């Protein structure tokens, strides 16, 4: 049996109020990398981040971690965050659904943010050193979608009416594991909502629901909307994956929801 606990200390770098400065250079534009650790002394697992952002939020960003010397950075993880709306540069923390490894000893680790246009951000990193036991991953994290705007879904008009099915992927070459999804509301309703994850060809999705999650939905000025699965949800290669949503409140006109998914590009079945 595996263990989902640890005695290893979760750390913060740098210590607040100091933070790493992460600029963005344009919508979905790749900026230069900001160094986190010049050379690790131990195996590092990134547990999450906390950052202050200049924009008002309400959109997706991809947070990327890389390893390698300056100029030879190799992207290891990309984790998507649907940034909350905020007024006064509140910081947002995200503890990743699974600490992300794949950083051998001695490697240089750097990061960058994509998605915003020309904003400055300050970030701290939560991480583990030598996370021997506990929930962790060395598979590469990569979201759906990647490096582009999130999926846009439309709520049903009546209470608990299912939306259409929206395709997350038509099928990947290799197995991946969904860990969580995040969303940004596009209207100002506040209510309970549900999400179905399904697979299968068009027309067969309803008979192939993989899991169902309830969450609370808060509108434009809401909160960090993130729903985490109890464990990663493995998706075999070649599997078409779709989702749909519904909520407790009827609307008069179609309302949208931007939504994205984080995944580990790795398999649990071979372990």
């Amino acid at each position, binding site marked *: 049996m595996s263990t989902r606990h640890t005695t290893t200390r979760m750390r*913060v770098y740098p210590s607040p109020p100091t933070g790493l400065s992460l600029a963005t250079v344009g919508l979905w534009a790749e900026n230069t990398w900001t160094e986190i650790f010049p050379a690790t002394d131990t195996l590092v697992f990134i547990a999450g981040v906390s950052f202050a952002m200049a924009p008002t939020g309400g959109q997706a960003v991809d947070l990327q971690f890389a390893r390698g010397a300056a100029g030879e950075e190799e992207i290891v993880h990309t984790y998507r965050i649907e940034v909350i709306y905020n007024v006064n540069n509140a*910081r947002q923390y995200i503890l990743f659904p699974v600490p992300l490894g*794949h950083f051998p000893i001695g490697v240089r680790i750097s990061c960058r943010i994509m998605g915003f246009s020309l904003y400055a951000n300050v970030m701290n990193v939560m991480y583990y050193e030598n996370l021997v036991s506990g929930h962790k991953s060395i598979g590469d994290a990569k979201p759906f979608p990647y490096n582009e705007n999130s999926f846009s879904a439309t709520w049903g008009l009546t209470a608990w009416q299912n939306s259409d099915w929206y395709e997350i992927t038509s099928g990947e070459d290799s197995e991946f594991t969904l860990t969580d999804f995040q969303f940004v509301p596009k209207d100002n309703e506040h209510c309970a909502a549900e999400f179905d994850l399904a697979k299968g060809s068009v027309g067969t999705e309803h008979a192939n629901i993989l899991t169902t999650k309830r969450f609370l939905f808060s509108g434009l000025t809401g*909160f960090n909307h993130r729903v985490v699965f109890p464990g990663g949800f493995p998706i075999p290669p070649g599997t078409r994956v779709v989702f749909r949503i519904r909520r407790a409140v009827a609307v008069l006109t179609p309302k949208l929801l931007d939504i994205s998914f984080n995944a580990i590009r790795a398999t*649990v079945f071979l372990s």
Partner: protein
Amino acid sequence: MASYFGKRYFGHRYFTARYFTKIPNVVLSDIDVDLPAFQVAVAGYVGSATTATVALQLPAFLSESFGGAPIDATLATSLPLLRMALLGGPPTEATISIPLPALNAALIGGVPLSSVISASLPAFTTFLFEGSVEASVAASLPAYRAALIAYLDAGPTATIDTRLPRIRSRSEASFPVQYLTLTINGENVGDNWKLDAWTVTKDGSIEDGTFTLEDPVESASAFRVEKGSIVLLEHPVGGLIYGGRVKKVTDSRIGEGKGVRSTIETGDWMFLAQRQFIDPQTFLPTELLIRINEIYEKYLESSGVENLVPSGESPDIPELIVDEPISVQEFFDRHTELIGWPWRINGLLKFAFVEPGSLIWPGGELNGSNAKLVPDVKWEEEETISYNFLYMKLAKHPAGEGPYAHSETRFGDGVRTVFPVNVLPTEVLGELNSDHAVGSGTLTVKGLPPGAKVRYADELYVSGDVRKYYVGTGGTVNDEGIVTFSISELLELEAKEGAQVTFVEGAMIDLVIDGVDTDFAGDPWVWDKTTKSFVNPVAAPGIGQAIKYKAWVRSEGWVRAWETSDPQVQLPIGWFDYTIMSARKVDNEDHWEWVETVGYLRDLITKDVESKRTVMLTTHEHGIYPFIQADLNFPERLIFGPYICEKVEIAPIGADKTLTDKELAYNCTFRKDYFGKKEFDFWRPVSQIRWGEGEQPLPPDFQWSASREYVLPGEQTGFVLNPLGEWEWTDWLEVNPSMFSAAILTGIVIERTDAYQPYGSWTKKFEVEVAISVDGGDPETIARFKGYSRDTAGGAETGTMRLMTPVDNIPQGCRLLMRMRDSSGGFLSVIEPWEISLQVYFKPVTGNVQTTPYVQEVSTPGEDFTVVTTNATPNTFSAWTEIIEEFTYDALVTALMLGPRNFTDWNYGHIQLAIADVGDTPSTDDQIVWELAFSAEQEILHNHSMFELENPLYVNSGKSLHIRVKSAQSGPESFATAIEYVRVAE
């Protein structure tokens, strides 16, 4: 315990003993309960003037009665649990003085154990005492106590005869004096016995024996042996040979009008460690004896076992993860395998876990002979032909028949100048084709692939010589597989034809650029041995330019695909896919084979592990199982079987090890029976997990599940609960009257519906309990949640509350319930309903999700959160504030709730959690166990109410938990905090 060496027999003995008597046939009892203590415990408990309701959850009842906290359970009873609790508890030497016939009957088999004890104490009492005290038992514990005392005071009418054997003295016997003395419950049995058979353990000690005692004359006073009696077998010179307890007694009549033959089966005291199980938990790195003594105190001390474990220094041992329940015996065995110290509970009920050579056994020190040499014992040897399988993982691949050619084409991108190779071009073998005397400056090698290049500075070894040589002037292997090259230094030893030449990393690389075979050693390309890359330091190949390299490897299986551009960073895992399994035939000499493992493994390892790697063989005597620690070039982390170890000591091979030393070889032995029956756990690195595109296994601790979660209720408004008042529980609300399937609770979603949501300024705290009711019994809480709501109607994390260790305690057919309470009242007098839904898995669940059977608890239940006050100086930590005064059991902290102060931005916050001894305040940095950068919400946004610990934090029993914060704002300001946590094990 397993038998290892077949059987040893004593010769049959005949006797003419007479005048034995026997007692009337009495039902044997195996109840080891110290009833007076039970009575005292109950009396003491009742003395605390409880008014607890009458129902009892028996395990809890028993636990609490014998010294635990006051009973507050109101649960159903279960007779099987009672029986297990009673019989599974520590044995007592006290004889049973209270018959309690009904209890006896019920527990031992008179009444089906599946029978239901009703949920009330009167019913329990009625059942227990067959109604004899029924009339006087009221519906309360005081009444029960009174009834019980009255019953006991009345003087039980019968006691169970201890029936110690009444044996004639030896002088009355008419047969020769025997060597060994058998004593049962302190009385010498005399000569009227024989030892039919015994088995011995892997360390040569007796673990159980079957004795026959005969009383040939029918007599009213004939002896019987009772289960549980203490058995000692002693030798006049060697001292105690065996000690244990009687497990089974079989009486049979010898013949009409004759006496009785008693066959008694006995077992040693090791069973005390076999029957105790250690639940899954994590043991922090410590010294061996500290951990061992901790286990002793917890599991063995109460059984009357004397502790001989010293308290001095002992080897460091790494963190240990117990993934599934493991017996104390196996726990100790694992440590023996790890450290090499043997352990034993000997025949005198003495426990020792000591350095080899100092183990108390059974009458003195274990010196390698007295544990096994028993006079007058017939040796019976059982032929066994088997193999020892030695599993090793090395940092190198096994020898292959290669070299094999491997090539790969890369393409330039206009930027990259460094191209790592995707194979490890290491250890390409060739052979000398002529003799080379000492001082030779050239070598001619055959057997390499035609066309292969031997280049300047390539490294090589010549068998028989420990020196590493470097190629001076290289060459290309001709069509016959021969190449001649110079070496930079003269040979120091003579090398005969056929001697093996081993080229190490970096040899045998060819490079073709756009179809043109380049001189790899020439401009501009160079070979970087360190990174195992070919490098163009002048210019990056253009986009799409084909770059084909060719390498030779010894084994096809060693061709590995690397994914990343930097092979250096992959070294830790790139070499971990090779398992060497060897089989050694076992001869039958002296009943087991001393496999000369050291030398064997030495050859194996030194052949396949380059010298700079380190290998340590740890070996000890007697019962110590050799294990292998190999530096796998990975940061101090290895997995041993199901356990994860870190900071493994690595010692260099060679300098301080004389591996051919006879004694060392003797010590490093595998006994065949041990290996024949049990797979030897081998060390393997954590990072055996590969990565790359596509098929990448994730670590075994990675949490995943392919099972569907469900919402209760789904596709509709959640269950509505109306708070009754400040921290007053609502009535139980039925979620499901009878669960059609067993389920696992994964979390709740709670929505505040009062008029102040979603952005109301009025803070509410709440608690939710989810419970089950089995067979109509009272609700049993399975999970508690505590949250903070200022505006939780939205997606705030307090609305969606995950269980970081889902609760696996919802049986099929149970009634599922929940209730809640909140801080309504006071300033916020508005009491509005909440809507709550549950998330569950229905079992079975596919995947790898750690669950718990225990109740998730909350801090300060039924009260407000703990208040933390910030420092007056910005960016300065507050004082430590205690959240949990004392964990009374090992626990996992699963979530931290934080209710930020109102109306102020609070950027650049910093939270730290620390663990300290009870009564202490954290004072050192290493007590900090968790920290987080965050900000309290700004004026109206509240998204940081719940911090879920994706890896819950393990806190040992007896520790306290503290929090401190700092912010960029000037203090003092206060905010609320709370945690959720769950027990690790009973």
